[in-house]
Structures are given as structure tokens and as C-alpha cells.
């Protein structure tokens, strides 16, 4: 984990992710902001790979960059004032100060903490371990998540159903 390849990759990917995340809040055009968001998702997936979490990385790309971002794009495109863009507001300076304060606090805490380094070996096959955990120890949250998705689907169908009788065929 300490070889130069991993370190270089970590710094490059972190720079990419942070730049993309900054782009999300700085860029004027909303659709460009979403594209930056997608880039940051892919960057985070890369960071997962440096931690040997291959399943999580691929799932990150699949779910976030593939599906969630499409959802956000549709939300922007279909709302009436979607092409409004990131507007100028008088709260920019206070927001920047607040963000810097939060970043400083988090950074100080992260650097100052005594992180406990685990001496266990990394997983070889993360997919099977995650699968066994999801269907063994964490089966209840798994099932609740699926019920949540069902509720969301039903809500979506109810929202777009035309008024009046259900269309036949």
C-alpha cells in the first residue's frame, strides 16, 4: 500500500475529485454542474479502487454515475426554471467563510486523531464477503431498502398517471 504507484494514484484521484466537487458549486450552468458531479463520482470510484474495494468501486460507477446522475439531470431538465443556473447571491462571502471554518475543523480533527490501524489482511474477494454480510448479518436493512424502493416506484407511477380512468392497453 505504500508503493509509489498507489500514492501517486491517490493524489491524482483526490485532486480530480476535489476539482470536480468545486466545479459543482462554482460553475454557472446547472447541467455543467451535474457533469462535474459525475466526474467527482468517478473520482471517488477510483479512490475506492486504491483501497482494494473493487466491488464498491464498480457499484459506485454503476449506481451513482449511471443512475443517480441521470435522475438529477432529469430533475433539472424537467423543472420549469431548470436553466436558471447558479445565481449570484449576497450570501456568497458568509457561505465561503462558513465552508472554510468547517473544512478547517474537520481537517484538524482528522489529522489530530489517533487512528487505530487494523492489522487484519485486506479481503481478497470483497463481493462474496459483502454478499454474505448483506444476506446474513444485515438482512433487515437490506429488505427495508427494497421496500423503500418499492414505495418510491409506486409514488413515481402515481405522480405521472393521467387524470381520470386508467388507460387501457
Amino acid at each position, binding site marked *: 500500500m505504500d508503493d509509489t504507484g498507489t500514492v501517486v494514484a491517490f493524489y491524482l484521484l483526490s485532486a480530480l475529485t476535489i476539482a470536480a466537487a468545486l466545479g459543482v458549486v462554482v460553475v454557472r450552468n446547472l447541467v455543467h454542474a451535474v457533469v462535474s458531479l459525475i466526474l467527482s463520482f468517478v473520482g471517488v470510484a477510483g479512490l475506492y479502487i486504491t483501497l482494494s474495494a473493487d466491488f464498491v468501486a464498480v457499484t459506485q460507477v454503476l449506481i451513482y454515475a449511471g443512475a443517480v446522475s441521470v435522475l438529477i439531470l432529469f430533475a433539472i431538465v424537467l423543472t420549469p426554471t431548470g436553466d436558471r443556473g447558479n445565481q449570484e447571491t449576497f450570501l456568497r462571502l458568509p457561505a465561503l467563510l462558513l465552508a472554510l471554518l468547517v473544512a478547517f475543523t474537520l481537517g484538524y480533527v482528522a489529522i489530530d486523531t489517533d487512528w487505530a490501524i487494523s492489522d487484519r489482511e485486506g479481503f481478497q474477494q470483497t463481493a462474496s464477503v459483502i454478499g454474505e454480510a448483506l444476506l446474513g448479518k444485515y438482512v433487515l436493512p437490506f429488505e427495508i431498502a427494497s421496500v423503500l424502493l418499492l414505495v418510491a416506484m409506486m409514488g413515481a407511477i402515481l405522480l*405521472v398517471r393521467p387524470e381520470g380512468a386508467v388507460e387501457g392497453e
Partner: protein
Amino acid sequence: MTVQTEPFVVNLGPQHPSTHGVFRLRLTLDGERIIDADMVMGYLHRSMEKLAEERTYTQNIPFTDRTDYLAAMTGNLAYVIAVEQLCGIEPPDRAQWLRTIMCELQRIASHCMAVGIFANDCGAWQTPVMHMLRDREKVLDLFEMACGARLTLNYMRIGGVSRDVPPEFMPTARKLIKDLPKKLDEYEDLLLENEIIVERSRGIGVLTPEQAMAHSVSGPMLRASGVAWDIRKADPYAAYDKVDFDIAVGVHGDVYDRFVVRLAEMRESVKILEQALELIPEGPVHAQLPTATVQPIDQPVAPLAIRPPVGEAYGRIESPRGELGFYLISDGSPAPFRFHIRSPSYINLTPLKLMSVGGTVADAIVILGSVDIIVGEVDR
């Protein structure tokens, strides 16, 4: 709680791979559903009707080629029948039979194109078009034998046809109608039961017979709605009262039925051609016209100027698209006073909005293909 939506307007055409020419359809869409369809025509208006008033009756025959450019024979014939009605000329028998043969060949060619393009509109990448154009080429070869042209034929004359067919015409025509039913079987095999074509066209663009008759629709569109009306039987011209054929009628009035009716009409045309090629008599192909000097019978004749008596006439025939009629008013001069074309495509387009509203954009394309318009006829 409903989601607020806003309809938006899309222009289908005038430049579009599928509007069969320069034709514009303004659709108001709500998502994919059409809520309004507005036709804008006139992109191909060539003011034929006014130009015809400057030319003699014979000089107007090439105009009729170019109104319906995929069915030039029938266009010529309708006009020529109108003039013959005005003048009271009776063409000889051989001319009548030749007219029948040419019109039926033209019907086969036009329906080949219509059916192929319909399958193309459904999305089959020109494969049916290529196959059906193969048969259309054989018909066009026959036309080239008879009158020297393939598309703008200019074959009919006032009082007959321009020239007799060469000796190699009859054997070639017989060979064509012997081979054609097998080809039609092959096309029906491939297209009739194709799941995707059935899904794309059954139940789409339904026109009830009352609606069809109220909008003066004619031709295969009317027959697909179930009304058995064919000018060849209702008001026989040329030699149609001497041949035996059926009227092909659909039962649902949708796009699939129009397609099926056109395929069946091709078979009926083959039947008519078989009888016509047997029964055609020998004889002159052009009548002796009163206003011209006596011309030798076996040479193509072009009378100098026909001056019909004052009056009006309406000559109509069954073109592959419907009832094609020419309304002529003569004031005794060599040029018509009024030359009006009742074009079937223009009238058949009237219920387009009725048929399209409620469907999707893809349906609108398919419905437009099933009406089988020729924009030259629509705009004249």
C-alpha cells in the same frame, strides 16, 4: 397531484426522410402523444392549373404526368377521358384495351412503391423497398418499350394512345404476370405476418366508413374502411366493364388494412391483365379526329389544335391513390378555360388530423405512409 407539463410544437418536415416529399406537419406534442396535427402544404406548388390555361389541350397532357409522378398513366388517362367527354370522341377498341393494360401495370408499379415505402416507414431499412422495386423495374421496362419513358410517360392522347406497342411487349407482359403472383406470395410471406409490422399498424389510424365518406376519401383508404367503392366498377371507363375482377376491401379501417388492400389490389390487377392480354383486339390505336386532317392510321398522330365545343366535363378514374378527376371548362378556344385537378392525395389527407391525434410521433409517420400521398398531386 399532477405534474405540470407543457406541450411543445415539432415540425415534421418539410425536409424529412419520411414525409414522402416536401410536406410539413406541425405536431403539438405532449410528451410523445400528439394533441394537434396541422398540415402545411404548398411547398411543391407549381401552378399547373393556371399554366394549363395557356396551353392547348394536347400540350397539357405532359402536365398530367407530373402531378402524380408515380402513376403517370392514370393521370394521363383521367385528363384524356375528360377531354373526350367534352368533344364527344370515342376511342377505338384496341386503344381502350391498351389503356386498361397500361393503367393496371401502373397500378402494380405504384403499389409496389407504396407497400415498400410503408415497410420503410415502419423501420425496415429499405429491404422491402429494394425487393419490391425489382418488380417495379420490370413494369418500367415495359413502359419504356411502349412509349420510350419510364416515369413521365405521356402515352395517352385525346382519342386513343400515342402509338401501338412493339411486338416484344406482349410476350414480356405475359412473362411478368406469370412471375408476379409468386413474388407477391413471397412478399406476403415476409410482410403480412411479421410481428413487428402487425404491432406497428394494427389499430393505428382507424377511420370508420362514416368518417371516410364524410371526408370524401377514396381509393384504397376508403376500401380499407370497409366501403366497397371503386370507380372502375361504379363508372366504368376504358375496357373495365369487359373484365371480371373483385374489389378488395378491408374490415378495420386501420393502417394494416390499407397495406393489405394494396397487396390484394396488385393481385386483382394481375387478374385483369391476364384477361386483357387475351381479349385485346387488333385495330387502330387512335380515333380519327374531326378537327384534324386525315392522318395515316399507323403513325403517331398529334392533332394540331382541338377546339372542343363550349361546355364543361368531369372525367374521373381510379388511380392507385383514389379517385382522380379532371374538371374542364371549355370556351371553344384551343386552351381550356378552367383546368382543375381533383387530386386524391389532397382529399385523402383531410382526415389526417383525425387519425393522428392521440397517437405518438411514430404512429403519425406510419399513418402518413399509409395514406400514400404524392406531394406533386397534393400541391399541383
